[in-house]
Each structure stands twice: as structure tokens, then as C-alpha cells.
């Protein structure tokens, strides 16, 4: 007695392909939507802060102080505007006219020329902390540029710290966002696809037909997942095409490794969908559950935006059961850093484990439901 008959699984898969071909909506959803979203978000989500209005109050008004202000302008991040008084600069910050203010007191040029500590005040609007952090991140570069330009002695810094950003020298946030976004979209769609398929059979009553034949749960699950794996791989292909050609996101790692990682991730998500479908048996409920379980954790807890390392311990451990967290790490590692299988052993193994766990859960639940 065999426990799995590939011919029966193939019959289910063939039928599923027919459903997909008959319903172009699914095809468009999986192949088109990720591309559209990546393009959309690729343009909209930009953590690089530019063209910030900077209120400049320069009481010193010497050559040195004007040079400092001009360095801010030439950095490309700031648009300096003259403020008539410190109070005017503060009002500008209050009203949101300025994102930051630069106050230079009299004596700045004199102190600088003497080699004494010369002081400027820099005020940042902290309302939007990601913007504020970006602004503060620009400061060291600007300060050193200003020092060079004013010709002031650089002896103040006994240990010169040379910083270089590896893999993404310009810190282009699209390189970071787009691969991550692809992970989230592909994950959500995968869950959604299979979550509906089994529930649909229950709702239509066609599950009765399947049950009255010698078809086994494992054959149904395999037949239901297989076509969507191919579909999802197609979606990933197009997303990567757009990321590379449209946004110049590099791909530095190995394609086979990325493919295997994608396969594991897709399998894990599709299995999660099957679990949802088997439990709910209703399309409406399955849809809601997959939106919640597929979108929220991956958006917030996968490291897509907020680094996993800086989460509170509970959430840090909780993320370990989320497949997007692991694939996020792997996908970014492979595409941007060119990481190899050995570097990514942990996330890849975790994906394998989650995949096996979800498949087993789907199978167990299905088996107890279907087999009398």
C-alpha cells in the first residue's frame, strides 16, 4: 500500500491549473501586482531625506561662518534660508517652515582662526524621528567638510575615524526596501492563493467529490501547492527584473541559492495558506485570516523596516517563527551582499524547518478532517 500517488496529485494539480487559467484575475494578481507594488513603493518609499529647509541665523557673518552655511547648501540635503533672529528661527521650526536651524554666534570666525573651540548651534525638529535621525547622520560629514573648507586645524580629532559603507556605499534606501518589499508581497500572495483553494472546495461542495474517491490528503495538498509554486516563482522573476532594470538594485549573490531560498519561502507561505484553508473551510474567513497573518507580522516583525535586533526580547524571539523574517534576511543578504549558502545557513535552515512544520500541520489537520 502506497501513501502517496503522484498520478492523483498530478490530476489535482492539472485541475488547479485549469482554475488559474480560467480566472485571469489570479494570474494578474500574482504576476502583475507585485511588480506594480514594487514600482509604486520603490518611488514612494525613500528614506533618503533631501531638500530640507534650514533656517540660518548668522550673527558672526564672517568668511568662516558663511563658508559653514554654504557647506550645508552644497551637501544637497539642505536648502538654507536666512533667519532674522534666533526667535525667528524658533518660530520657523514651530510652524514647520524649517526642519532644522543653524545658529552661529558672534566670535565664531575669530575662535576658529585662533584654533580655539568654535561653537555653532544646530537645532533639529524631532517630530519625525526618522527624518531627524537622517539629518543627524549627515552632520559629521558636513562638519568635516566645513572644517576642511575653512582651513581650521583638524588637530582636535586625535583618532581620525574613516567610515565607509560597504555593499551600499551611497546608502541608497531603495536597495534595502525593494528586496524586502518583494518578500512581503510574495509572501502575502502565496498565503492568499492557497488559503482560498481548499476553502473553495468546501464551499462548492466539490470536496465531497474528492472525498468519495481514493484521493489522500497528501495528494490534495501536493496537487494544490505545486501550480502556485510555479506561479509565485514567475512573480518573483518579474519583481527582480523590475528591481534590477528599473531601480538599479544590484544582484550580487548566486541565482541558484536565491531560487532555492525563494522556493523554500514560497512553500512555507503556501503551506500556511493551506493550514488556514483547512481550518476555516470558508473563503471569506480564510481571506481575512491570511491578510492578518500574512501582512501584519511580515510588515512589522520581519525586519522589513524595523531591525529585528532592536526589538524587545519577546518579539525578537517571536520573529523566529515567521518565515518572512528569515527570507528577508536571506534575500537581502544574497541580493545586496552576495552572501553564500554558508553565510546564510541559519536563515535557510530555519526556512526549511518552518516549511516542514507548516506542511506537517496542514497534513495532520487535513487528515483528521477527511479520513473518517
Amino acid at each position, binding site marked *: 500500500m502506497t501513501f502517496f500517488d503522484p498520478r*492523483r496529485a498530478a*490530476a*489535482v494539480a*492539472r485541475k488547479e491549473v485549469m*482554475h488559474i487559467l480560467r480566472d485571469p484575475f489570479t494570474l494578474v494578481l500574482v504576476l502583475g501586482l507585485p511588480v506594480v507594488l514594487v514600482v509604486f513603493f520603490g518611488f514612494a518609499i525613500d528614506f533618503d531625506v533631501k531638500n530640507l529647509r534650514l533656517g540660518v541665523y548668522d550673527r558672526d557673518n564672517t568668511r568662516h561662518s558663511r563658508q559653514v552655511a554654504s557647506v550645508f547648501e552644497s551637501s544637497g540635503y539642505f536648502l538654507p534660508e536666512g533667519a532674522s533672529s534666533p526667535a525667528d528661527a524658533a518660530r520657523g521650526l514651530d510652524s514647520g517652515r524649517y526642519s532644522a536651524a543653524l545658529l552661529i554666534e558672534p566670535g565664531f570666525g575669530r575662535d576658529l582662526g585662533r584654533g580655539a573651540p568654535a561653537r555653532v548651534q544646530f537645532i533639529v525638529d524631532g517630530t519625525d524621528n526618522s527624518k531627524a535621525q537622517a539629518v543627524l547622520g549627515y552632520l559629521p560629514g558636513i562638519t568635516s567638510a566645513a572644517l576642511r573648507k575653512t582651513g581650521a586645524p583638524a588637530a582636535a580629532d586625535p583618532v581620525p575615524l574613516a567610515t565607509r559603507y560597504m555593499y551600499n556605499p551611497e546608502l541608497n534606501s531603495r536597495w534595502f526596501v525593494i528586496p524586502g518589499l518583494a518578500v512581503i508581497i510574495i509572501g502575502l500572495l502565496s498565503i492568499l492563493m492557497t488559503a482560498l483553494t481548499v476553502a473553495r472546495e468546501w464551499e462548492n461542495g*466539490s470536496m*465531497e*467529490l474528492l472525498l*468519495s474517491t*481514493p484521493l489522500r490528503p497528501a495528494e490534495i495538498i501536493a496537487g494544490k501547492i505545486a501550480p502556485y509554486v510555479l506561479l509565485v516563482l514567475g512573480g518573483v522573476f518579474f519583481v527582480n527584473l523590475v528591481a534590477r532594470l528599473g531601480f538599479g538594485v544590484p544582484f550580487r549573490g548566486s541565482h541558484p541559492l536565491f531560487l532555492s531560498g525563494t522556493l523554500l519561502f514560497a512553500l512555507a507561505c503556501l503551506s500556511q495558506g493551506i493550514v488556514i484553508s483547512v481550518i476555516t473551510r470558508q473563503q471569506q474567513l480564510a481571506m481575512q485570516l491570511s491578510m492578518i497573518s500574512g501582512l501584519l507580522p511580515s510588515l512589522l516583525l520581519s525586519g522589513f523596516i524595523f531591525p529585528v535586533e532592536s526589538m524587545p526580547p519577546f518579539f525578537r524571539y517571536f520573529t523566529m517563527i515567521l518565515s518572512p523574517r528569515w527570507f528577508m534576511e536571506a534575500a537581502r543578504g544574497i541580493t545586496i551582499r552576495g552572501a553564500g549558502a554558508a553565510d546564510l545557513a541559519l536563515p535557510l535552515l530555519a526556512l526549511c524547518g518552518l516549511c516542514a512544520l507548516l506542511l506537517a500541520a496542514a497534513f495532520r489537520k487535513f487528515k483528521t478532517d477527511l479520513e473518517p
Partner: protein
Amino acid sequence: MNGGPALEARDLTIKFGDFTAVDGVTFSVERGEIFGFLGANGAGKTTTIRTLCGLLVPTRGEARVGGLDFSDGGRGIKGKVGYMSQKFTLYNDLTVGENLDFAAGLRKLDPAYARRRREELFSLIAFDRPLSTMVSSLPGGVKQELSLAAAMLHDPEIVFLDEPTAGVSPASRARFWELIREVTGLGKTVLVTTHYMDEAEQCGRIALMRTGKLIALDSPAGLKSAAFPGPMVELDFGGPAPATALEGLGRAPGLLELSPHGMRWHAAFAGGREMEAALAGLPAGTGRREIPPSLEDVFIRLVEGAER
């Protein structure tokens, strides 16, 4: 096959938790028979059929279907039977050909054999539309016939039909029953559940079910003569029946059954003498006509009477 009964159930009991859906049912069905299940909703007809198809395992008791038991979880039985459930189970978004190919794939039928069976079944159900017809575009009766063909593609010995004619037109119902007779003519055994009395009349034997129990099992004629050994009359009072007349009838000795049928009443008696005595007391001008009892009368007497 060894020539034994197509199907046997002994003390078949199926429980869902505390609820007993089928309670100690015993019967056997001969090969080539049309065996009907008649009963109200929730009487246990569908549960019995689903069990005999191998979809449920009996909680207690035994069943042998096509000579096989449940020792393998019903898998062997599934190979020998065809099942058409209450709900329409074909896929509306697939074509006729794709649906049948899928059914054949699930049964691992050889493609050439599946094609031959398809042609045989198409001629049986007189289906002459192209294979590329979308199932969603077929009329209800044709859909049901196609479901039957899909359930019979693997040439099962026994065919289970759970309310096969629910929701189709009267003409399609009649045609479907002709089809059922043709199927048994091919040596198949058919078990069918129905709500319709006229359909039950066409069964070889009928199992009458109530709250999970088998309360009667016989041919339609046998059920009638067992329930109504004496004569039955239809009374027409020419309008609403006078309460006094009904009261008098109700007290008459030997009255077996008195039930309204539209504006008329059916009264059944233990014998001819009792009938004459009771009818003598009715107002003049009351129309009376001796009628053969219908299955509906039997159903009312056996199923609803037991509830009173």
C-alpha cells in the same frame, strides 16, 4: 463478486459526539436493486449513505459494501462505489471534458478506457454537446446527469445518489429516473435518497427513516398494505370540513388514519364494515371515493404518526 448481496449493514450506528445520527440500522440490498431512503431532513439518510460510500466509519455495527468492510478506513469501498452528493460537485469554471478528465485522473483510469467510458455514459445520458462546453452554461437537469456520469466513470458496482433531483424541473426528474432504471438494467445497484413520494414509488424497496432509526423497510406496495390493511376513502365535504363530522370520525372504532389533503380528507379503516359504520354518520352530500393509499399516506402514518 460471489453472488451475495451488493451491500449489507448490521446494527449500523454513527455518532457525532453525543449525537446519534444513525441508530442501529440493519438491512441488505440485492444486486440490481433500486433501494430508496425516505425520511424527513435529519432522519439520517445522508449519513447512512455517506458511511456506505466510505466517507465515514461506523461507530458501531458492521457494513459490507461490494463484499468489502471498513478495515482499511473505507479506501477499498471508495474504489467500488460511485457517489453523487446533494450538492452539485462538478466545477462550474471547467469544461465538461476537463471535469470528466479530472474525475478519471482521481481514479487513475487509463486514458483510453476513460474515453471509452465517457462515450458510453454520454450515450446513456444522451449528452451530445461538445466536450468544450462550460459546465456553468448547462441547464440544471443536464448538470445532474453529467454528475451521474462523473460518478460512474470508473464503472462502480454500486451507485449512491443523495437527492439527485433536488431543484431540477419535473421533466428532468422523470428523465433522471428513467436513467436510474437504465443503470440498474446494466446490473448496477442504486441507493437513492429522496423527498419526493412519486420518486419513492419507483424504488424496488424503500427504507423509511426517522431520527436515525429504520422504521419500515419494504416494497412500496408492501409498505402500503402493511400500513393500511383495510380500505381508504377520500372524503369531500364540498368546503371546509364541519368540526362535528371530523370529531365523529375521529371517535369511530377501527379508524386507522385521518389526515387532510388540501380541502379533502383521507380516512383509513381496519376493515370494510368499520368504514361503512363510520361513514354512515357523515352529513348527506359528502363525496366519498375509495382510493388506494399513496406512499404519502404511508409516510404520514408511519413517520408523522409516530411523532404524535
